[in-house]
């Protein structure tokens, strides 16, 4: 079946090497281009230490790099610092102002989609729509685990999207909502940190059954004699989520971008916990035409035992995408 799904990468994926000075913006873009991840998603607050005061030179350099490597800007990951002040939350006006700032910066950086972080107040999202529409920018709410598509919190945004019916309002699914198998890099790290092997096995088994009583798991692990590392792992498990990929179908008209979260590419064909071979056919069959933007999150779980090689991990994910998208045919 023909499709128009494009491949890309979020610079989030390379955070370890960028932090350690092993990669800079140019080498990160160059590496991505080398395996065809041509759509570049950026976290301006990570890339630019002088955020939000980007200079014209920085913006010119950004476009120059895309010209040099044949890549294009895709999404802009925004944050909203509601707790900027210790004594009170941002007001609605301050929240809208923060999003307007991001819309302006997104326009300068040529990113057509803004990833709206999930803790954004729905009323801020709605009030920012007119300016986004005026600037030709799309505000895409990130659906992030453990929240499900039918969750009360997410429903508030869906109600706005359907009611306002603006071309600027839509969604950005993070594929972390499709963690079918507990990530092995996470449980292995817990074992190295002192978790109890039989309780780790139990947590994995419980998670993989996707029960409806995840709120009891930490208590259960305590009763089974769990130590603090075991209990922390149980709490972590309640932060992952699995729903059937078909859950995406009713939302297809509103999907502006996808963050292809992953924890461990075992080889060029297989992510350990997220079944992309079940997800991608749903995207193809239902006409998704945006990016699959790699979001590697394994680094923090392996950095204690091995040098993190984020580029290799992203390369493997793209090798898998090439196959699943039929680009090899």
């Amino acid at each position, binding site marked *: 079946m023909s499709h128009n799904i494009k491949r890309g990468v979020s610079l989030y994926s390379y955070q370890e090497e*960028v*932090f350690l000075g092993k990669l800079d913006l140019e080498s990160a873009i160059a590496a991505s281009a080398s395996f065809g991840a041509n759509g570049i998603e950026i976290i301006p607050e990570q890339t630019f*230490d002088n955020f939000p005061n980007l200079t014209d030179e920085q913006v010119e350099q950004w476009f120059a790099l895309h010209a040099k490597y044949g890549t294009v800007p895709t999404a802009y990951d925004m944050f909203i*610092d509601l707790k*900027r002040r*210790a004594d009170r939350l941002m007001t609605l006006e301050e929240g809208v102002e923060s999003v307007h700032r991001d819309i302006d910066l997104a326009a300068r950086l040529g990113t057509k989609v803004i990833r709206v972080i999930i803790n954004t107040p729905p009323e801020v999202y709605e009030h920012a729509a007119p300016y986004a529409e005026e600037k030709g920018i799309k505000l895409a709410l990130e659906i992030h685990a453990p929240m499900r598509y039918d969750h009360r919190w997410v429903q508030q945004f869906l109600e706005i999207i359907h009611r306002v019916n603006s071309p600027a309002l839509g969604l950005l699914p993070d594929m972390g909502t499709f963690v079918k198998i507990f990530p092995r890099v996470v449980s292995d790290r817990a074992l190295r940190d002192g978790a109890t092997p039989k309780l780790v096995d139990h947590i994995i088994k419980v998670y993989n059954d996707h029960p409806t009583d995840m709120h009891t798991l930490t208590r259960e692990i305590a009763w089974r004699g769990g130590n603090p590392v075991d209990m922390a792992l149980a709490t972590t498990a309640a932060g992952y989520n699995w729903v059937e990929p078909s859950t995406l179908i009713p939302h297809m008209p509103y999907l502006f971008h996808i963050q292809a979260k992953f924890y461990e590419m075992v080889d060029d064909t297989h992510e350990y916990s997220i079944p992309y071979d079940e997800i991608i056919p749903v995207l193809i069959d239902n006409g998704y035409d945006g990016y699959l933007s790699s979001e590697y999150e394994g*680094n923090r779980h392996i950095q204690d035992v091995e040098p993190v090689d984020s580029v290799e991990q992203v390369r493997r994910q793209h090798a898998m995408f090439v196959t699943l998208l039929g680009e090899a045919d």
Partner: protein
Amino acid sequence: MFDRYIIVDGSLRNVGDGNPTGYAIDTRIGYYRGLGLSMVDFDLEVDGEAVPKESITFQVHGHDYPADSLGDVLDDRWGFNEAATLIVDHPGGLPAGEHEVHYRQWLRISYLPTPSQNDDRKVMSVAG
């Protein structure tokens, strides 16, 4: 996510020529983006002793802030790629040799129900 890296290894040194006025270390933000200074808090222990906040200056891209007033700084940020220097007022500096530095950082991340905590501990040498 960057606990193990938030003290810059080997960065402990005395400051002030001849007769040191104190000592300093370099620190990094333990998060995957920069953050406004009002959302940053930390504490520091050297050789098992808490270092009083009043004696610490937080220095980032050339700006100095009293460490105990970071919470009020709404117009400056600590970048992802920036080291911030903690300069401790401690006449005479630290004796030459090894010292254990324990640095804990709390980041008020709006996305999270409670502050994100980072914790690093490194033994570093001060030159004689």
